[in-house]
């Protein structure tokens, strides 16, 4: 794993994803749910790096997302770290990374982290939030299909397994 290259790829992709999250996310809303570009990137990077690096990337993404959204930071940091770590754990323990695993991991992690987020930051309308979480998870799974290849190629890890 080329660490400097991973760092540069992370910085550039986080910058792009944060910009898209701020400007494009609400324009792409379907049935009240929005895609979460930064979350998808956290999942994809989690698949490409080891668990420790994934935790660091997750924490940075959580911080950036909370700054963009203007909400409490610790909830975002915690859930993004969890997502990135879960993805890294998947690859390190059982699965070979590929585009299908990236999509499935984004879906499952979005659901898990969405529920964790609901527990640590309770919403008044649980039913509506749950519905939005499920649609967002599906949206993120589709986005992961688009994000996986460019990220893998940019990180110089195409075809390599951890």
């Amino acid at each position, binding site marked *: 794993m080329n660490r400097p290259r991973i760092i540069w790829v992370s910085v550039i992709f986080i910058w792009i994803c944060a*910009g898209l999250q701020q400007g494009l996310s609400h324009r792409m809303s379907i049935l009240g749910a929005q895609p979460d570009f930064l979350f998808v990137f956290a999942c994809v990077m989690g698949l490409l790096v080891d668990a420790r690096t994934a935790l660091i990337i997750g924490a940075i993404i959580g911080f950036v997302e909370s700054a963009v959204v203007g*909400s409490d930071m610790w909830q975002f940091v915690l859930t993004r770290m969890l997502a990135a770590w879960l993805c890294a754990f998947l690859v390190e323990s059982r699965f070979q990374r590929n585009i299908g695993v990236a999509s499935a991991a984004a879906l499952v992690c979005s659901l898990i982290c969405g529920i964790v987020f609901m527990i640590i930051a309770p919403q008044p*309308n649980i039913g509506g939030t749950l519905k939005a979480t499920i649609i967002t998870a599906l949206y993120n799974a589709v986005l992961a299909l688009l994000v996986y290849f460019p990220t893998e190629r940019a990180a110089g890890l195409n075809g390599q397994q951890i």
Partner: protein
Amino acid sequence: MVTVALSVLQRNARNQGGISITDQIVRLTCTPVSRISAGTFDGIKGYMDGAVHGGRLQQENLRLNRQLSTLMLYAETTTRLEKEVDSLRKLEGLEATYHHEKVVADIDGYFPQQNRITVLAGHDKGIKEGMPAVCAQGLIGRVQTVGAKDCQVILLTSSLVQFGAIALKYAPPPAGLISGENTATLMLKFATPTVPVSTGDIIYTSGFYKGVPRGIVIGRVLSAESMPEMGSSRARVFPAVNVGELREVVILK
């Protein structure tokens, strides 16, 4: 340690109605990508809409222009009457109610789960915490934090904000407090046990909160119920504004 420090910094800044320096740096850095992506998306969507609905849009535009010229006649009269009211209030030694400078600004981000929008107007345009954000349809929310070039508006649908609300249809108009129930509806609470409103009534701002003028549309009553055992009554209100469709807001200074 770094996370805790940043979190404390963020919270302290927000409690003072500001945005922490780290958050400001992140947002300013992201703004170019945000603007380019939003501009590209809007351009493509506009082109597609134009291609598909061109004829209908042209007709609608003509009709709206005719309506606008008719409304301009009323707008002139309204402005003159507002000035008269303000000057009469001034003679009585009261504060002017209608004189609010308007700042029109673009929406840069909408976060429905957090009930917030980011607006591209900050200290540079004289925005301060607590100022109301409105649009043609009605009230959107209140400025919560202000940065150098942007601010965040907490939406009416948030349970964290309350506004004074009134049903102007009745005499004397019943007044209560309205706040978000969920992302789609609001809850208006009255301190009287009998329900003074009914389904379909329009709810306006009461003007009792400093900085928020009276008479801005909040929404329409969906249902009302009295709670005599609690000595109060409440009404569920559907907000007049669909924030997801907005591109610009007006902040009243």
